[in-house]
């Protein structure tokens, strides 16, 4: 029993008897964390393809694969958490229209289709080329991936570009919706003073952008350093600027929420105050605010505004990305777990420490965070992360004024 629903560790004050159980545990912390990475990574790609941020070109295609790898795993924490995962599909078949959670199936599916199609069209020339060159099982596999269409005529590629352009634009609201609705799941719970705020979905979306930019940039630097390939300094610098901007907004709104509640001093603040100066003291003030927000904000400020050489800039920038990735995780933890610690009795709190073993334990959580990286590795065997031809193709997509029949140099 305790393995299934981790019991709280102790209580302070009077807690309603049923509030001693923290039903939403590590898996529900992971769920918004992973969807945030998915949405954020997509927006990195969109910055180049839709908003024309040229320096992000090296990561534009990788960001899509990064998003796909995490998207595949986004529903896993939910399924692990559900008492009856076998019935999960009924959220799709018989949704309750008044439930924020019921939107999951539709938004997730719509976003998944858009992302998969984008990757398909982006890599189609590459896949066709591989299909033509391979033999046996590989030939069959690439044939399936290309959907047996090997038309790479200028007209067909022009059509691909048009479709991709539409998909990239369509993907932006879908990515925001994917994560905004996750924030709404929490923000719409009026019974919980820590969650019930219209700012909650906004903060969730902004922190998703932070984790997406940080995750893609960090993976880009690490993978290229390990692979002995050059790292585009312009790409790193631009990523750091966006990271700083998104993070400054996120952190400001997070602090605004606390400041606003404190200034109003209503009953909600009393709950929040007890939590922030009680069970969340170290995870919120020490970790989320001081170590993982103030430090990277200052560090990024020095890197962007100061005179720091390219080498240290990349290393310290990557360190900031790690800190911000952790900050977003801590923010999810403090929101999801913290919100449940304060009893509806308004007279007490529970203490909670998750275990390592069990269905919602730390080992499963670690496994679920490693799995997308394994999937990303497998995807990388099929879809090259930084191929010249794919990036050239992206370039053609973004630069509309270029010659429409420009060839993609596949296999060159």
């Amino acid at each position, binding site marked *: 029993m305790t393995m299934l629903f981790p019991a709280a560790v102790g209580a302070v004050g009077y807690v309603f008897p049923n*509030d001693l159980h923290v039903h939403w545990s590590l898996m529900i912390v992971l769920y918004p964390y992973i969807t945030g990475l998915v949405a954020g990574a997509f927006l990195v790609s969109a910055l180049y393809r839709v908003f024309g941020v040229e320096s992000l070109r090296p990561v534009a295609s990788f960001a899509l694969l990064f998003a796909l790898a995490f998207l595949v795993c986004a529903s896993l924490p939910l399924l692990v958490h*559900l008492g009856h995962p076998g*019935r999960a599909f009924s959220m799709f*078949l*018989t949704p*309750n229209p008044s439930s924020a959670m019921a939107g999951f199936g539709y938004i997730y599916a719509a976003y998944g289709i858009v992302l998969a199609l984008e990757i398909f069209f982006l890599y189609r020339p590459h896949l066709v080329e591989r299909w033509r060159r391979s033999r046996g099982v590989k030939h069959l596999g690439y044939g399936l991936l290309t959907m047996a269409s090997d038309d790479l005529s200028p007209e067909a590629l022009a059509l691909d570009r048009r479709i991709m352009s539409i998909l990239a634009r369509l993907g932006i609201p879908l990515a925001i919706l994917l994560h905004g609705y996750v924030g709404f799941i929490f923000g719409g719970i*009026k019974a919980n003073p820590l969650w019930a705020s219209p700012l909650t979905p906004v903060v969730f979306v902004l922190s998703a952008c932070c984790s997406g930019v940080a995750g893609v940039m960090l993976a880009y630097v690490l993978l290229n350093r390990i692979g002995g390939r050059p790292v585009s300094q312009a790409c790193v610098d631009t990523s750091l600027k966006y990271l700083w901007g998104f993070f400054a907004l996120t952190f400001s709104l997070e602090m605004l929420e606390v400041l606003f509640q404190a200034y109003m001093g209503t009953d909600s603040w009393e709950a929040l105050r007890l939590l922030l100066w009680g069970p969340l003291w170290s995870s919120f003030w020490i970790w989320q605010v001081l170590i993982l927000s103030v430090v990277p904000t200052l560090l990024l400020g020095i890197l962007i505004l100061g005179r720091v050489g390219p080498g240290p800039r990349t290393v310290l920038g990557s360190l900031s990305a790690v800190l911000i990735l952790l900050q977003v995780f801590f923010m999810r933890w403090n929101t999801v777990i913290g919100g449940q610690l304060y009893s*509806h*009795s308004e007279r007490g709190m529970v203490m909670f420490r998750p275990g390592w073993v069990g269905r919602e334990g730390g080992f499963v959580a670690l496994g679920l965070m490693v799995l997308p990286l394994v999937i990303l590795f497998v995807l990388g065997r099929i879809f090259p992360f930084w191929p010249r031809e794919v990036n050239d193709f992206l370039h053609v997509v973004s630069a509309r004024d270029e010659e429409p029949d420009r060839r993609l140099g596949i296999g060159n």
Partner: protein
Amino acid sequence: MAARTASGGNGPEGGRDADLRRRGFLRLVLSGAVGGSLLLVIPMGAARLLSGAQEDEEGGGTSNNPAGRRYVFVVDVTRCIGCGTCCVADRNEFMVPDGYYRTWVERYVIEGLDEVHVDSPQGGLNGFAQLPEACPGVARDLFFVPKLCNMCARPSCVQVCPVGATFRSREGFVLVDAKRCVGCAYCVEACPYSARFLHPLHKTASKCTWCFHRVHKGLEPVCVRACPTGARMFGDLDDPDSEVGRLLSRPEAVAVLKPEMGNKPSLYYLGLRREVI
């Protein structure tokens, strides 16, 4: 092939005829598939419509309220002695696992003007033989408050349930269809009264039902029946002969818990104090 034979050959006429028949056939298949999919998508609504129709026939009531009754639960705080008999009866009736509560009793000890000590050891299951630990001073007042599902008219749990497993019946009972519940615990998080929990064995949401299974047979909820002082009362609000009907028609202070939540509970309290949340 049959179409070709029937049309008398493979000539241009026969081919067109076959083509038309094929189109007709495809149209039928397509509409069948769409219709079938719709049936898959709407079983919840269909089931509700059917059950509603059945209730109409059985109850002979109006379409708005087939049973013709408006059930309410009334707790008289001044009568509760904190014996815990109601909790024992409930636990026996539903085999509630340890550590989870469909109903519980709270003890309030007031010291001075605003010093409030609340406790509910084992949900009040074993009564309150011992004095509360954190109450060193002299108590100004002491009272007991039974808690259970509020059967809200605007229930948060029904609003948030992603699959419609939690629903409000026409008689006003908020119930859980355990065969449909996915066990996501969203309803548990959304209930302002913490009346819900995830059943550790069934892995579905569970809570007090006001003994719907008994009420349907004309019986009282077990806790009402077990209460030795009559602190728990249940009945039809519109029935002038019922105890709850009489109580709630008198000019007496009647309160609900957390009215600011806007859930509009059907659980009313007599003699409720401002300290109670």
